[in-house]
């Protein structure tokens, strides 16, 4: 985006964007790891080789990245480090060249609203809200919603969860929760989507539908993703594979 004539409003918006840590006309959000080692897994990790732990890694913006990891190798831990909800590591997670810790809470919230989205393995649905409200919460959290309410309905139809939209989060099955969590992650703008075993509770058919939707939404945003899973799969046209 090139700005030739900056009006006062442009400058105002730019300042707002800077405040939230969003500078849309810069290049894509860079995520890099710098000799990252989880403190609880340190002994196990130093004994074996890993494509991720304890080495410099740069995730290519816009690329579909798969991280394959057997149980207990720190898959979920990695996702939490990437999304900055856990910090018990040595080394660094660098976002646009800066460690997570250097960003303010407001700036991190801005990134989570505009630049990076997440699907947790444990889904994290509000049980006191309906399925639709769980999605809406994420959609209307941003000052300007990225997608319309109709678009949400459309995505729900594609993932076969239209019938549960008005059900309380408490009564949803794991499969339903997982699909709601996927839709919730897709209603916001992002440059990176971080997914932790996103299809673990889905049957083959639903998993493929979900994968197709995710791929479309990433393409629409020119966004990349980092997906962690236990096994080898061919649901996406992955650009990069790592073994954890």
């Amino acid at each position: 985006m090139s700005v030739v004539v900056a009006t006062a409003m442009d400058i105002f918006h730019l300042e707002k964007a800077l405040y939230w840590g969003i500078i849309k006309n810069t290049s894509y959000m860079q995520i890099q790891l710098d000799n990252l080692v989880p403190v609880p897994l340190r002994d196990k990790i130093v004994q074996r080789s890993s494509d991720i732990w304890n080495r410099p890694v740069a995730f290519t913006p816009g690329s579909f990245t798969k991280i394959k990891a057997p149980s207990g190798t720190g898959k979920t831990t990695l996702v939490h480090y990437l999304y900055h909800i856990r910090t018990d590591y040595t080394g660094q997670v660098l976002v646009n060249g800066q460690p997570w810790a250097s960003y303010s809470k407001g700036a991190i919230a801005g990134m989570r609203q505009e630049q990076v989205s997440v699907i947790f393995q444990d889904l994290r649905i509000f049980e006191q809200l309906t399925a639709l409200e769980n999605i809406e919460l994420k959609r209307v959290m941003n000052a300007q919603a990225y997608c319309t309410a109709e678009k949400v309905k459309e995505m729900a139809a594609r993932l076969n969860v239209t019938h549960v939209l008005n059900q309380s989060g408490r009564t949803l099955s794991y499969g339903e929760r997982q699909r709601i969590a996927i839709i919730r992650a897709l209603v916001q703008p992002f440059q990176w989507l971080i997914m932790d075993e996103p299809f673990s509770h889905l049957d083959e058919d639903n998993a493929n539908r979900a994968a197709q939707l995710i791929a479309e939404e990433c393409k629409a945003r020119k966004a990349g993703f980092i997906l962690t899973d236990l096994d080898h799969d061919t649901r996406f046209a992955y650009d990069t594979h790592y073994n954890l």
Partner: protein
Amino acid sequence: MPSFYHLLKKIIQTGIGKSRLIMAAGGLGIAMILLLIAIQAHTDFDQLLNNQRNANESADFLIINKKITNAMMGQNARSEFSPAEIADLQKQPFTEAFGFITSNQYKVTAAAPGDLHFYTDMFFESVPDSFIDVKNDEWKWTPSDNTIPIILPNDFLNLYNFGFALSQDLPQISQETVKALPMKITISQGMMTQEFTGRIVGFSDRISSFLVPVSFMDWANGKFGSGQTPSPSRVIIKTKDPSNPVLSKYLEDKGYSTNQDKIKYSRTKLIVQTIVSVIGFFGLILLVFALLVFSMFIQLVIASCKKEIQLLVTLGTAPRQLQRYLMRQFVPLYITIGIAALLLVAALQWWAAAKLAAHDMFISQWLAVGTGCAALLVLVLVYIVNRVNVRKYINAIS
């Protein structure tokens, strides 16, 4: 579709500490009412005093002298004010203006003109013109003038007319007649004598003395006096509020005396001020407790929704959004309490004004500006304290 705010309302339940919230709100309400009553009562009492004071214009001026005690008798110097005492009096906050009363340092005799066979020794004093309540074009003197303008105390003429003249079967004299009578004034010191014509130009309610212009006094003291400037034994001050308890306490502590009638309200004022201060003090204490309970309530709400708030933050909710949401829960409550307290005190004021008016005491029917400002100030304080609390507890868990 529900707004973000409505969704937050479903997630962050503020109903958990309802009893605490009611306690805090009740405490805030009572604290506010007490504070506002204290401030309003203070204003009202000032107003009452001002009205009475306005009826007596000379109350703004006090002539102060040392009490003459038996031990001091025969030692005139002990009733004089030392320069240090004068400086101290001048720097008191209640002293708006300060003037010496200068006495003559020569002998003065007055004789009635013609065949009246009236002759008396007398004295003169002078005060700066700004302290004199008689405004008169004749009140001036230059060394070339042979006529001295004189101001007599009103009381002096009254004493003569209603005391002396009636009992001695002498004629009563009007002010006009006194003003028309020229008197022969002789001032002397040792062998030096000079005669003047004295003319009464006015009567003072404020200063009980025989006053001559300062220019004459200075000239005559210079020519006939000892050459030394004597310390004054009476001074005059101008004060905004003679009922100021600080003033009466100062006079009492120093052993000075003045016209007690003029400072009689100071005691009442002191009592009212004490009562009002006590009420205000309790209001403040209660306000502090209300703020504490509020902050406990906020802590409880945030702690009880810790998981939900953490998930909201994980999903990208900015701490500012959460703070704003929580403040939106409380602010309408404060404003309601503030308005309710103001209305109650306003009703009380209106009622008190009506009651007092029946006894010929007049206070405004409306609240004082200060009371409104105080209510606003308390609300701003509560807002700030709560905002700081919300911010602190949200930051602690996010």
